[in-house]
């Protein structure tokens, strides 16, 4: 089994001097390496400036590929339905949709030169990286050539779909976050209205929590443990109006008191439960995107979540009696009540798209056609991203008071998002481990810890420059 190393020794022929023989062999091996190196390793070489795609009037039949991340059966069916409408309008363009794709796969396909013609993402934080690197094509020229009225897209939404002056993606519906609460459990605990401040949220959470005889959690009033479903720092600090980055793009978490205040509130509630108990309870919670979701099963009384949960609750046939409200806000920031965190789904044309003209038609249709936007938002229970679609009668969800909450949050001028950065929002990824250490009591000095995060984020940002 084990190969003795002497068995690799090869004797050279005395006819060809060993050194010359070695040189020729080395040249033979190195030549293709250098040739490959000279060919470059990036996908397609230099970035071309934005220009309108030629062939806009070309009606030659074409098939384009479209990768999206939606995977639930009702969501995939909704995508196929809106694509059928597109095919009706452009019969010569056939769209091959591939569901359940992730950003990492899209990046790798672009790098490998096998990118789809159109790709979408749930993660607007990646827009910075895509625009800065040229991974997604600048759509400005197409927008100008087709006279697309960008004013129909709210300013906040426009901001997270472009980066550094480059509009490399368009918004394809938005996710808006708020509070879901279980009305039955509220009534049992004698709570008459959803909390409006974070102090009220903590008080209600304690009232609603039920422990088992062995001390473990049976029903959690609210899961303060960061990393549980949508309970993440970016959704939490919005209630304090936290700003992640300074205008120059450097990290702001130590300078902005919102972060220390939010984390202190969160840690106090974690300590009330016990971090170990919360970790155990979290491990037993059902899959977030399934009918076993702990809110849908009544094991969690309140949770922060996106508007899509209304559609999930309906599709899962959950019998949870629930209501929705804007997220409670910090006691000293009452003016923020009614706003929330908005995260966007984005769509664009990756570098290497083989049919960019047809791809642009699809992107334009999905993001600006009022009926397409409103009907798709209605089908998957997301917030539409054009003003016309928000007001469209086709948006029947607007009549559902639980969904209407999110439309109001979306329209609120104080509603905010996490800014794009050229490294795909690495400042958020790197905050995760810090937040985990914090809630497990491994950060003795919060201010010093946050200052350390700033330093690390700024150093990481320099890697992209």
């Amino acid at each position, binding site marked *: *089994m*084990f190969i003795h190393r002497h068995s690799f020794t*090869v*004797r*050279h*022929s*005395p*006819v*060809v001097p060993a050194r010359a023989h070695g040189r*020729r062999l080395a040249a*033979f*091996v190195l030549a*293709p*390496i250098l040739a*490959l*190196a000279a060919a*470059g*390793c*990036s996908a397609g*070489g230099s*970035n071309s400036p934005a220009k309108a795609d030629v062939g806009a009037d070309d009606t030659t039949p074409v098939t384009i590929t479209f990768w999206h991340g939606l995977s639930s059966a009702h969501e995939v069916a909704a995508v196929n339905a809106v694509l059928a409408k597109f095919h009706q309008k452009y019969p010569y363009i056939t769209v091959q949709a591939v569901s359940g794709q*992730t950003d*990492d796969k899209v*990046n790798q396909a672009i*790098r490998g030169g096998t990118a789809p013609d159109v790709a979408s993402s749930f993660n607007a934080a990646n827009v910075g*990286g895509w625009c*800065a*690197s*040229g*991974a997604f094509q600048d759509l400005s020229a197409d927008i100008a050539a087709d006279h697309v009225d960008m004013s129909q897209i709210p300013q906040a939404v426009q901001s997270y779909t472009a980066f550094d002056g480059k509009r490399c993606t368009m918004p394809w519906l938005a996710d808006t976050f708020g509070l879901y609460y279980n009305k039955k459990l509220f009534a049992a605990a004698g709570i008459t209205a959803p909390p409006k401040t974070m102090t009220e949220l903590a008080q209600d959470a304690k009232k609603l929590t039920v422990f088992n005889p062995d001390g473990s959690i049976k029903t959690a009033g609210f899961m303060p443990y960061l*990393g*549980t*479903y949508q309970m993440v720092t970016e959704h939490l600090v919005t209630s304090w109006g936290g700003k992640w980055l300074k205008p120059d793009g450097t990290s702001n978490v130590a300078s902005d008191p919102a972060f220390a205040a939010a984390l202190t509130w969160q840690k106090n509630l974690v300590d009330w439960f016990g971090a170990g108990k919360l*970790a*155990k*309870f*979290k*491990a*037993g919670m059902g*899959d*977030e995107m399934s009918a076993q979701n702990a809110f849908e099963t009544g094991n969690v009384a309140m949770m922060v979540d996106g508007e899509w949960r209304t559609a999930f609750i309906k599709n899962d046939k959950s019998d949870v009696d629930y209501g929705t409200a804007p997220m409670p806000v910090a006691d000293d920031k009452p003016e923020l009540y009614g706003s929330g965190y908005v995260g966007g789904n984005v769509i664009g044309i990756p570098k290497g798209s083989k049919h960019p003209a047809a791809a642009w038609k699809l992107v334009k249709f999905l993001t600006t056609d009022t009926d397409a936007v409103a009907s798709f938002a209605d089908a998957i229970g997301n917030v539409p991203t054009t003003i016309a679609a928000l007001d469209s009668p086709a948006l029947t969800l607007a009549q559902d008071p639980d969904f209407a909450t999110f439309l109001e949050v979306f329209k609120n001028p104080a509603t905010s998002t996490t800014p794009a950065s*050229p490294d*795909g929002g*690495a400042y958020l*990824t790197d905050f*995760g*481990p*810090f*937040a*985990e*250490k914090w809630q*497990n009591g491994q950060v003795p000095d919060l201010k010093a810890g946050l200052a350390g995060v700033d*330093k*690390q984020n700024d*150093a*990481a940002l*320099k*890697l*992209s*420059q």
Partner: protein
Amino acid sequence: MGTLSLVTRAARRPPGPDPQTSPAVRAKRRRTRIRILLFLSPWIVGFTVFLAYPLVMTVWLSFTNSDMISSPHFVGLRNYRYMFSDDPQIWQAVRNTGWLMAVMVPAQVLFALGVAMVTARLKAGAGLFRTLFYLPALAPPVAATVAFVCLFNPSSGPVNKILGLIGVHGPLWFDSPVWSKPALTLLTLWGSGTMMVIFLAALLDVPAELYEAAELDGTNPLQRFRYVTLPTISPVVLFATVTAVIAALQYFTQAMVASQTADGSIQAPPGYPGGSTLTFSQQLYTAGFTQFHMGYACALAVVLFAVAMVFTVALLRRASGFNTEEATQ
């Protein structure tokens, strides 16, 4: 083999007058060289495309700011400076990878050797038990990891339920920063069937007369293991250790899947819980494939390659010294 015999034949040619002058001989020699290169070409192509080129490019990219989408530009040693002084996660990743090498590798080698020794001695049902112990190695790592996380779920998993029946308060396993790596080690032990089979083959190859001679000399089982079994199978133990060390240095899939499954989200913070399962390879993946820092990821890969080389050379040297010492005794 064909190439080797050609070279050997050429080497055995008797000395004669200087053949450089004859065009016919030169032509023949050229044909021989071309033939040699043709025989070597599958290796040369494979080596060039799958090893040399990626290696050269990785080293070059480690000195650049590259996202593998736009053109890279040279930044000198900046990536290496960032790695050693600024990366917030790297030392955690190094510690975790070091833990796996220091604890998981010896545990795996000892466990596989122990199981191999037991199954080698079995008189009845040897085939059945060898198959049973080997079977887990056939499970795809992702599926096996997901299954383990479910089995060890502190809230609903059967492991803690069984422990509870005997009065043991089970830990949080994959949800605990302290227990996540031991849980991964258990997963590795469960799946170490391939190493067990290699040890088994080596153990069955130990000449029976050596044991008989040792028994006649009045040795006890421990002495027989120390002075007969171990020296005979030591090349195989070395092979297993070197490959396990390299596998630990590149440990990725199980850590990543366990972290995401235990957290319940593919957007789990790297190394959940508390960075305890963040390995060097995961840090490399995050930098290169999600944060557009492919230049930095290449710098991490270069360091990983260098460390793997150092460990391999050190282990081989240590072992060759051990063998020589044994041979002289």
